């Protein structure tokens, strides 16, 4: 591992070869990431609209972010959706992973079952769930009916649009289940044995052993799910937006990315949309930094892990 590079000609040759290998990424980074980032920042201070060249408008776009009530609304919707899905998805996935951890060989079968929905394209899942969640005749409300519960109009009642988005996302939580199951399998058995000898009950064992030992995987999925939830688009757009719904769509289902997309590619307000994108970036950055800070306090990394 720790071989020192020989100095001189050979070292230079090695370095040159190295840059040849990473050249594609450097080019891609400059053309598709760094350049566009600068351009996007510049656009956010203009009124660029594809048909007309952009004029600098100072802070006007950012001022409009504050003035346009739909920006705030869409941001609030996105937060609400994330606040529903991320904790719920984590708990459900962890619960199912813990069940699978206990069933021995059958776990293989269930892993397949739980992962299968992830393969469904978001548009397909959205279209399916429009019917499954139908207020009058949908399957979910029919099942709820068996238990004497009258289900809401999931797809039309403004109050239930975000929960129905969360339900669709919950259906595709299989990836986390697999990740948690792998993490649970890596917890050394001796820890449980020792805890048992010390008389720790199942709840105590969960909080003192299981949770700390898989905290790395939990942390990873919570961060990635939060970032993904903030950028939710496909399902929301499939279920609640389209050419026909412009007039009727309730703002309760307007998530941030949908509004951003509409501004950029339906209203061609690209300067304004760029400003929206930068605000989203900053929000995600802040959330992630906070999560990483919190994570450093709670996540337990095994010092001499055999991985």
């Amino acid at each position, binding site marked *: 591992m720790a071989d020192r590079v020989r100095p001189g000609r050979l070292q230079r040759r090695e370095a040159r070869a*190295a840059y*040849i*290998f990473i050249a*594609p*990424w*450097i*080019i*891609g980074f400059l053309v*598709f*990431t760094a350049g*566009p980032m600068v*351009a996007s920042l510049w*656009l956010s201070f203009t009124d660029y609209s594809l048909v007309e060249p952009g004029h600098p408008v100072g802070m006007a776009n950012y001022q409009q972010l504050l003035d346009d009530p739909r920006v705030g609304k869409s941001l609030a919707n996105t937060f609400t959706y994330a606040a529903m899905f991320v904790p719920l998805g984590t708990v459900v996935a962890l619960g*199912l992973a813990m*069940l*699978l951890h*206990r*069933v*021995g*060989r059958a776990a293989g079968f*269930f*892993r397949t*079952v*739980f*992962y*299968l929905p992830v*393969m469904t*394209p*978001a*548009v*397909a899942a959205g*279209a*399916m*769930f429009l*019917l499954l969640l139908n207020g009058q005749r949908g*399957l979910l409300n029919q099942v709820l009916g068996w238990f004497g519960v009258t289900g809401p109009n999931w797809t039309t009642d403004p109050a239930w649009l975000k929960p129905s988005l969360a339900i669709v996302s919950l259906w595709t939580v299989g990836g986390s289940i697999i*990740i948690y*199951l*792998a993490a649970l*399998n890596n917890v050394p058995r001796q820890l449980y*044995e020792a805890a048992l000898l010390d008389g720790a*009950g*199942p709840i105590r064992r969960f909080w003192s052993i299981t949770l700390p030992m898989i905290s790395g*995987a939990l942390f*990873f999925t919570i961060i990635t799910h939060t*970032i993904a939830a903030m950028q939710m*688009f496909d399902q929301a*757009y499939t279920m609640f937006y*389209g*050419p*026909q719904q412009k007039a009727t769509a309730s703002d309760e289902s307007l998530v941030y990315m949908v509004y951003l*997309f509409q501004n950029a*590619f339906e209203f061609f307000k*690209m300067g304004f949309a*760029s400003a*929206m994108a*930068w605000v989203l*970036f900053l929000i995600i950055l802040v959330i*992630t930094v906070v999560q990483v800070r919190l994570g450093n306090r709670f996540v337990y990394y095994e010092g001499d892990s*055999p991985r």
Partner: protein
Amino acid sequence: MSVETRPLPPSTEPPADPDLAARPLPTSGPARDRRRLGPGAVLRWLLLLVATIAFTYPLIWLVSASLKPKSQVFDNRLVPETFQWSNFVQVWDAGPVLRWLFNSGVVSLMAAVAVTFSSAFVAFGFAYFRFRLRGPLFGLVLATMMLPGAVTMIPVYLIWHQLGLIDTQVPLWANNLFGSAFYIFLMRQFFLGIPRELFEAARIDGCSHLGLFRRIALPLCRPALIIVFIFELQASWSDLLKPLIYLQTEEYFTMPRGLKQIVDGFALSGEYHWEIAMAATLVATLPMIVVFAFCQRYFLEGLATTARQG
């Protein structure tokens, strides 16, 4: 890959703890499991049964709904009262579905092949060589994973607009030629697992750097290549945002974009043919189910690897 789980010796299990005592140990045979089926285990299997139904039923329901006549789509029967196979014929009238499937296949294959080889190439650069800027540059690779696509979305659109490639499928895969941060990270982890002596020996035998990559790194990391390939295949197949942005002509649509069009179309005309929409949904989903059926273990392995390195 995974740490072997050892069963607890039975003597250490206090009988006062039925929950743990009921745990079917991985190495124990079925007979032993059955003997230990306590209330905890019954509850566990019951919960798993409910979860299994919740996760699979929508897909089974989809197959069933796509075969029903219009009036029965919402009857939620598992087996259709009347099988209307013609739905799958009528799907072709709702849009050029075969064309969309073909487009999706081409786009996702191009995207997957491009990203697999470019990411592996770049990852090898970061894994094998030691050079001054390696640390900072690799940090930059990881940092780009945090960047929301929305920030670069508009300028990247303008680039393709300048190149006159709007309403072609090129923008859907071409940027994959330059590697993708997450896959570079993943492939690098795999390359780092190859013993360095292997490369050194090949170098002494006169193997070029490209040879190291092609003859040693790639063959040894075939599973990793497959993992990257199928993950990108699935991601690209499912994507809606890019086709929405870049494609205008119906002929060029990918399957998800086409499916969205079909659903919207029925909504526009006011006459919902959900049975046709569901048949189209099934058509859009089925190829991925087939991919999963064949590559299941790579999907699961890939996720487990991600978790370990997260």
